[in-house]
């Protein structure tokens, strides 16, 4: 089975810095892989995976300094997935970036596999931490960012949060800490899809105004369309240029983006019947 739309994963050390035209293809390939991975189980985090494809493409394939051959390279940029359930997309991105063998994707959610539905560090050093208990990623990221300052080893820490996760009080403890400590090497990418288990976030707890909250905690806030690759690249660059504050990129995303049968449907753990998956793959087509 050809698990990658691209024939050879990228294995270069350091930032890939792919241009937008290439990142579009990456996002497309990631979406195809998400459908394939979730299709096997018939249910899973397909909506989040499709929705965050551009976030992952811009982070792993443009901005982050990574060495696939040496996942614990001391100066690597840390990438943390606090929303550990977005695992189909995460594992697809690791495979495409050359951080895990593409064949491993065949084991996704199989009993005994290290590719679990909530990403765990059982997969090895390519995973920076085990989350899934929501609200914890930003604290660990802040610890890593503080460690860089203490040790003098220069790197950035990126952490992907979900909007539903903002309901956890610990996120705000960490936001206050990172703001107080002026951890300018820390960057949150908020995957703002307005979706949580019980539906629209507004129907559970009111999150708005999100940007104002982070501003009040002393953060550099950048709001953008999470599918706009140009805007994402500029935001990452701005985050790197920030010298006194941590940055949050508030990226509005559409669940199920890119597949007409799924786009805009709010479903945290969505059913993906084979016929829907097949239609999705047909719609996504092969990379030209």
């Amino acid at each position, binding site marked *: 089975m050809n698990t990658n739309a691209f024939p050879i994963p990228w294995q270069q050390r350091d930032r890939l810095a792919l241009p937008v035209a290439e990142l579009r293809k990456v996002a497309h390939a990631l979406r195809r892989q998400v459908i394939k991975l979730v299709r096997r189980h018939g249910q899973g985090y397909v909506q989040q995976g499709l929705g965050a494809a551009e976030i992952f493409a811009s982070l792993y394939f443009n901005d982050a300094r990574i060495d696939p051959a040496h996942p614990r390279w001391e100066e690597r940029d840390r990438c943390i997935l606090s929303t550990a359930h977005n695992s189909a997309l995460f594992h697809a991105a690791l495979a495409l970036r050359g951080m895990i063998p593409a064949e491993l994707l065949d084991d996704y959610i199989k009993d005994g596999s290290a590719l679990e539905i909530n990403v765990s*560090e059982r997969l090895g050093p390519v995973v*920076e*931490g*085990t*989350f*899934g*208990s929501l*609200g*914890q990623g*930003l*604290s*660990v*990221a*802040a*610890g*890593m*960012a*503080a*460690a*860089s300052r*203490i*040790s003098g*080893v220069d790197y950035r820490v990126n952490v992907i949060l979900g909007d539903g996760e903002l309901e956890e*009080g*610990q996120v705000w*403890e*960490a936001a*206050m*800490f990172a703001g*107080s*400590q002026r951890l300018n090497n820390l960057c949150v990418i908020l995957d703002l899809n307005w979706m949580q288990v019980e539906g629209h976030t507004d129907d559970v707890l009111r999150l708005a105004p999100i940007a104002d909250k982070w501003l009040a905690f002393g953060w550099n806030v950048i709001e953008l369309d999470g599918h706009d690759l140009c805007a994402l690249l500029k935001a990452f660059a701005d985050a790197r240029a920030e010298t006194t504050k941590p940055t949050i990129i508030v990226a509005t995303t559409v669940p199920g983006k890119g597949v007409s049968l799924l786009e805009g449907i709010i479903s945290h753990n969505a059913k993906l019947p084979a016929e829907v998956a097949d239609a999705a793959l047909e719609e996504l087509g092969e990379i030209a």
Partner: protein
Amino acid sequence: MNTPTSSQQVRERMLAVEDFTQGGAHTSVIAAPSLEKPLGDGVPRYYGEALQALARERTGIVALSADLTAPTETDLFRDTFPRRFLNAGIAEANMMGVAGGLARSGMQAWVHTFCVFATRRAYDQVAMQIAYPHADVKIVGFLPGLSTILGVSHQAIDDVALMRALPHMTVIEPSGPAQIPAAVRAAADHEGPVYLRLLRASAALAPDTPWEPLELGRIQALDDRDGDVLIVASGLTVEPARAAALALREQHGIRVAVANAHTLKPFDADFVLAQARRRKLIVTVENHSTLGGLGSATAEVLAEAGSGVRLLRLGVRDRFAQGASMQWLFERHGLTATGIADAVGSALG
């Protein structure tokens, strides 16, 4: 009256602050702005000094506190190594995650707060970000069990049970100030998560007091190795247990051996089983609930080995306590020398 407008002004107003972080009988007045020196002069900070000494040798040690820097004696570390110190504020859940992140970056992180907040308050964070990844984090909790007047919110009667239940976690409780340096050293030398449960000294040790050794994972045999009865005590109950044994021998001619279970996990099953073959009664004493702590650990070992020896567990009997002096609380819960001696005497009929 003017409203203070700066933190300096606020500090200057704090002319007399009672320190409620110790036993209850102990309150001391401190002059502004030395909130950092909460105890009266002359009480050495055995923990703070031990950590400070260790950090001089090992540059990879970092320390965190949750707005309890002086009450956890971490101000010594902070003032000596300011770049390696982080105050996380009153936010223990975040502090545990930050410590996990520091440990994942190659540092040995020492986190400080009261026992209740280190365990109950941040249990999931400790489990997922410290225990699961085997992070080299030392969780240092102060105010164990009934050692504080601050009441039920500050009394950690279940922390040992909680920490014991976590895979990868080591649990150490020194018997008193003389064993704190060895406990700190043992925690530092053990690579991985450690919960260190201790109480600050409220008075200086006598000048000729020897430092107590601590061999991780080994129960330490103390007084009178013979007799039909063995008391295994931990932490603040070691001293009353020894006094109880002395009283039983002197007043009733009953020989009672005493041991100090400073390592509650991993638990020294070999010692307990070897003792069980020689004794008619084993007594556990702990400044903690009898559910899940030293008494439970002992019962588990004895039962699984099919030992028929009788076991008496002394401690907090499945109830919450209240704010009162430590002396009063220990009397109330049968943890004084008299209480322990009476319970042992009754058990022997």
